């Protein structure tokens, strides 16, 4: 730093603030919300509003009702699907039963039409002791 810069540095050294400066600043900050707490305070005050409390309670009730309706709907759908499956199984069994009856009938008819000699031959071809 050369001599001129040194002079400049001395000329621009810090000055004391005027008397009572800090008090004036603090007086102007009075009434202002404290920073940092501001958001929490506002949020707390907002939550404390009776209208908001009522709205929150109503929203909670609505939520519970909606959850109940959804649950009931789901149960009902499962019940309907189960019922439909039961009907389909019954129908399948009925069809199978009809088909079996037809087959048995045909077997009986064949047995009735075939002569006994031919039946004997058929029996001899089988291993002994199977037909009593």
């Amino acid at each position, binding site marked *: 730093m050369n001599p001129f810069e040194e002079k400049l540095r001395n000329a621009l050294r810090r000055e004391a603030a005027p008397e009572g400066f*800090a008090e004036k*600043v603090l007086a102007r*900050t009075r009434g202002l919300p*404290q920073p940092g707490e501001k958001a929490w305070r506002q949020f707390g005050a907002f939550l404390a509003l009776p209208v908001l409390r009522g709205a929150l309670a109503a929203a909670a009730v609505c939520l519970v009702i909606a959850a109940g309706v959804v649950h009931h709907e789901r149960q009902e759908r499962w019940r309907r699907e189960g019922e439909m499956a039961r009907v389909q199984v019954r129908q399948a069994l009925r069809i199978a039963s009809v088909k079996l009856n037809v087959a048995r009938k045909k077997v009986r008819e064949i047995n009735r039409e075939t002569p006994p000699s031919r039946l004997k031959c058929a029996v001899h071809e089988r291993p002994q002791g199977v037909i009593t």
Partner: protein
Amino acid sequence: MTTATLQQGEEGLARFIRGDATAFADIVQEHQSMVFSIAYHFLHDRGRAEEVAQDVFLRLYRHLASIKSGNHLVFWLRKVTCRRSIDEVRKLPKAPPASLEDVAEPAAESPDLDPLLSRGLRRMVASLSEDARAVVVLRYQEELDLADIAEILDIPVNTVKSRLQRSLEILREKFHRWAGDVQR
């Protein structure tokens, strides 16, 4: 800025965050001289400088929750004080450039007498353009290096360097003419 001052700043911030109402008063006490002096050397008017300094501390009060450390606090104060001072200068109607007659108050016998010399130099600084003034005040009052000044004023380091050189040339020239007048 000494380590002790920074530690006090950190402590003040921590106390303020904990909700200590007196912490802000301590922060103001700690930094009022710096803020007031920057504004005063900028505006060369104690009343307006006090107004600007109060405004800076009120802004600090609103933003204190976002200040992260003692270093950050000092940086923030310097930056906001410079900006606020520049705004204050620009708000006023342009004054005619200070003549040497305005600058010199050769009432004393010797120009080397400190108070006279200092007063003359302060007036010369106040006659510089706002941008040049900011660089000179931060350099010689706050004794900051060029990189710090660049960061505070948000300008490149080379701009700081050229503004400082140009300002020193102007000030030196004015000073020599003034000193010659005083000696005559």
